[in-house]
């Protein structure tokens, strides 16, 4: 299990050091600094073995978090734990920065004592932790309160406490998708997938039993057999994972998604699709080398969705060679600029409706070089945001039952929003 946990600043000074196991000595702190943080070469692996001691590290801005062990631990678990640790810290004091860590080190030690015991991760749901690890000091609790805390921390529903009350029962569903594409210069899709998340923000009283439904092909087809014909609007989900509140065995057996949600925000589900993806934009590049000192680039983008919808925050990034001396750009729409420090032409368009087309052309002057190495021609990348789900996912229902309290499914105010964003959306040129 995890033998110790260290947090360093970018210089390698240790900000937090908590040792859980006797086999981890103080020298481990220095070993990581010398061999990883101060290493001459770029880090080649997130797992480093130094003198039979293994170090797992993740970096958040310029802060290093390192877990140390001498045993054959579950590596995936250690990384998941480090991420979780970051989430917990962010939930408590915001951004993970040197200053925040120094200012909250007592709190961090307290958290580390609670969520890792002898190197075994314990309940690390912030909702539960915040009931008894607070920044204001523990109030004297009544016996009932104490046992409620302990039963929540150890209980089956560790993510929600009892007795929550709202005057207005409300819930918000965000379907957030990132669409990823790798396209060849000829316009052939090399790989495309959507990774999506369903984020739920709920303000519901009591212990509400929820059921979530979407246009999952498997479910629709099953129902189609029973009664009316399938609508054809269903999507094939390659794989999905759920927040720990979702009853996985029920999903496995009936493919129904039922759960008691944590209060406030949670990521209910993540999913991935690869079939019938709506690619919101197509990029058509044309690069021509004119002699040794000039490049001509023409890029056309086409929007491919309903004309009534508007895409926003569109940004096309066209890489330029390292020996670029000057660039002239003409674009039909938006603004384009050559950014020498980033070696790219950045073309920004605020809004663009569906089924439209726009074009940019640029002339790139090059300095003659003797460099034998060819320019690697990085792909043209794109960023955007569209108000629909490129996977085609639709929320069909979210039913709420709370048998003990007197509100029904109809009394809950529900909101659904779809946002599609670009993930890694690249076209080779």
């Amino acid at each position, binding site marked *: 299990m995890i033998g110790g946990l260290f947090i360093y600043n970018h210089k390698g000074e240790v900000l937090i050091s908590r040792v859980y196991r006797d086999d981890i000595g103080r020298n481990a702190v220095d070993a990581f600094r010398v061999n990883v943080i101060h290493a001459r070469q770029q880090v080649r692996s*997130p797992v480093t073995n130094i003198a039979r001691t293994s170090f797992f590290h993740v970096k958040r801005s310029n802060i290093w978090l390192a877990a140390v062990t001498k045993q054959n631990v579950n590596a995936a678990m250690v990384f998941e734990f480090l991420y979780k640790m970051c989430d917990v810290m962010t939930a408590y004091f915001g951004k993970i920065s040197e200053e925040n860590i120094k200012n909250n080190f007592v709190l961090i030690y307290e958290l580390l004592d609670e969520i890792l015991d*002898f190197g075994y991760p314990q309940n690390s749901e912030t909702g539960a932790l915040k009931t008894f690890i607070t920044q204001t000091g523990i109030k004297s609790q009544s016996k009932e309160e104490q046992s409620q805390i302990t039963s929540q921390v150890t209980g089956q529903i560790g993510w929600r406490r009892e007795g929550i009350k709202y005057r207005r029962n409300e819930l918000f569903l965000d379907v957030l998708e990132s669409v990823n594409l790798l396209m060849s210069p000829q316009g052939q899709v090399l790989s495309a997938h959507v990774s999506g998340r369903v984020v739920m923000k709920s303000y519901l009283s009591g212990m509400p039993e929820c059921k979530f439904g979407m246009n999952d092909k498997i479910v629709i087809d099953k129902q189609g057999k029973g009664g009316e014909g399938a609508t054809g609007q269903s999507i094939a989900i390659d794989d999905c994972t759920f927040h720990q509140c979702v009853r996985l065995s029920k999903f496995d057996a009936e493919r129904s998604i039922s759960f008691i949600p944590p209060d406030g925000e949670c990521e209910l589900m993540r999913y991935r699709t690869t079939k019938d993806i709506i690619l919101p934009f197509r990029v058509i590049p044309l690069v021509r080398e004119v002699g040794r000192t000039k490049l001509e680039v023409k890029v056309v983008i086409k929007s491919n969705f309903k004309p009534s919808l508007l895409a926003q925050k569109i940004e096309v990034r066209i890489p330029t060679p390292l020996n670029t001396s000057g660039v002239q750009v003409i674009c039909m729409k938006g603004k384009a600029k050559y950014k020498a420090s980033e070696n790219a032409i950045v073309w920004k368009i605020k809004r663009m409706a569906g089924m439209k087309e726009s074009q940019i052309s640029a002339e790139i002057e090059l300095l003659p070089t003797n460099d034998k190495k060819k320019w690697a021609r990085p792909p043209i990348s794109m960023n955007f945001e569209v108000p629909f789900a490129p996977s085609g996912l639709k929320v069909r229902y979210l039913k709420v039952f709370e048998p003990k309290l007197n509100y029904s499914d109809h009394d809950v105010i529900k909101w659904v929003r779809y946002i599609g964003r670009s993930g890694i959306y690249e076209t080779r040129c």
Partner: protein
Amino acid sequence: MRSVMFRFHVCAGEIFELKAELNSDKKEKKKEAVKKVIASMTVGKDVSALFPDVVNCMQTDNLELKKLVYLYLMNYAKSQPDMAIMAVNTFVKDCEDPNPLIRALAVRTMGCIRVDKITEYLCEPLRKCLKDEDPYVRKTAAVCVAKLHDINAQLVEDQGFLDTLKDLISDSNPMVVANAVAALSEIAESHPNSNLLDLNPQSINKLLTALNECTEWGQIFILDCLANYTPRDDRESQSICERVTPRLSHANSAVVLSAVKVLMKFMEMLPKDLDYYGTLLKKLAPPLVTLLSAEPELQYVALRNINLIVQKRPEILKHEMKVFFVKYNDPIYVKLEKLDIMIRLASQANIAQVLAELKEYATEVDVDFVRKAVRAIGRCAIKVEQSAERCVSTLLDLIQTKVNYVVQEAIVVIKDIFRKYPNKYESVIATLCENLDSLDEPEARAAMIWIVGEYAERIDNADELLESFLEGFHDESTQVQLQLLTAIVKLFLKKPTETQELVQQVLSLATQDSDNPDLRDRGYIYWRLLSTDPVAAKEVVLAEKPLISEETDLIEPTLLEELICHIGTLASVYHKPPSAFVEGSRGVMHKRLPAQGTECPDVGNAAGGSAPEAAPSIIPSQGDLLGDLLNLDLPAVLLPLFNTNCSSYGILYPQVWLPAMKAKGLEISGTFARRAGVIQMELVLTNKAMSVMTDFAIQFNRNSFGLAPAGPLQVLTPLGPNQTIEVSLPLSTVGPVMKMDPLNNLQVAVKNNIDVFYFSCQYPISMLFVEDGKMERQVFLATWKDIPNDNESQFQIQDCHLNSASNKLQGSNIFTIAKRTVEGQDMLYMSIKLSNGIWVLAELKVQAGNPNYTISLKCRAPEVSQCVFQCYEAVLKN
């Protein structure tokens, strides 16, 4: 108050100041002082001098202050054991506190203080806490047992805590169950043979129930524990799999990977024709792909594991090639791993796409990545024959870029392509030769030299090219020197007239001026070969080379099986067994996949779907010089050496029949004996490889006397690394017969879980002499006359000093029938019967005072005479 920024230095004056503050009456001031102490402690300053003052703050109602003092105690108690005792009372009191959070805190902290006296006081509170009414206290106490075990294992056993811990597996609270499982698993690891966890269908059922209810971390503990269980039959295995599969949809990647581990392991037991088996295979792919959208560090862990899974069960991900395509922004460690998996998944169906990608990668910036991409193109050529031509032309394009490391890498892989497809792509040699000067890495130079030597007859200036390398012979690495030596000898054999001087030069450089024994030995071998028998030399040096296999860098099957049992853990990230990086006894136990119960006990068969015979052999890496010497260039040189050794030095000492480097680490030596009428083959098997060998079996080729194993090879326990085992294999003489040359030659195949290996050895024919070989005098006389004189052969045995030859010979079932003395000469008449019924008659002449004996042998099958004579010689001289 938290916003106070601490300076991270403590000097003597400050210690004094802190001391005063710690002893202050004001609570807030006290608390701030303790915080400062902890801050100093964090950065490694020694604040142990404040021990008594800090411990004095322990008696407080303020939970936050208490936690800080505890933190300090955990750090310094060990260095101040006597003073730590001061804290015991407070701990014991806190364990009785009405607030469960404080009870748990006390028992948790006490377990972290490694001071004997404190440990003694821990036992009673711990016992109470293990049975506490509050689950939070129980789950903390469960972990505390593991802590105590780490400090004093005997104490834990004596106090009966292990039994209490076992009881907690049936606790009503899932988190208590999970922590108890985690603690027990860890304790069990240090007692490999104890039955601590006592996994049985009932306890497994409890675990599976808790699995649905506990936290993500608890699920990991339980799944990792389940993976150690071996189900009794395929039905149980299937029902566990069914209950574990829902975990594949968990958001936590570690839960997913641990579930994959359980499924991969238990799948071994399922019959392949079962519908469920197919369903399960299909269910595994999507979650594995989903892992690739996790954070990069987790992707790395996932990819290292997928690499194992793809080797074990390629069918799972064979259609998912695209998800392993490298993204421009992937961290380098993710890129390299993806590339590895791409090569493994490359097949005829997807090769076009893969090649297009690889070509793209070869123009990237990261040197390691580009090299690997170039190498991958070569591997594709070797793996998918249809693509070879395109791969070669892609490689040529890359060579034209003149980027130094790309060229070198390309040349190394082209050498392998030549090995795989001889006489097909030699037209590219000219292009390669152009780049000779830019090669500065040993591997590339060695590859180029190999190419020049191999195709010397087609390269007009081959001698000049090789000569140019010869100038700096002593500065080259061994790899290049060896290759250069072989290449020049090849050149000489192909163009003897022009290159005599060159070959002389290289031989003298290798044998006289070099300190490297490998190089010297190879030089001498060539020299002697060339000087004694150039024709033989040609046959040896220019012998046809065995084809190289398609797959490389495969993990040894036994290691792979072990690693599959460690999916998700560090072992699977390092691709090493835990014993390679874990100190002490922990986790050193080798794990194995279960065998499929009924049909096929052979794990290799059940697992890979292909018989071990078909298992691809692994190309020895270039660095393995000895392997290179034996396998690549001189397959024929050493074999005869071993064989002649056998026959001329007698057979009583075990001979090395199969050297370890020819058999992936298995060394076999042995001898033959005849005991109580039974022929025994005495084998000594030594495992010189890194991993465990199992599933040994032996078979003989047809041979002159129909020797065949009378039973299976009795190697019942797996053979660990560096272990040696001696086995006796009884032989029968009723097997199929085929005349061998020499007559007593025996070709043997030995199989283990890794591969099948072949060797040949010679047995002394005296083994075949049967006990009832004493002929009647009359019959002897008649037979002697009856056998034509043409069948008689005469031999001399020199330097023999024996008093009673006949007694000695009788021990080997050579029976003396008559003896007469003629003119001071002893004439001994003897008979021998071979196991196949052939009679051999002998006449031994011994002259007093003359150590040279003369022997005449008469037999209807005169071929055996030579062998029989050798036996005489061996027996009489021993």
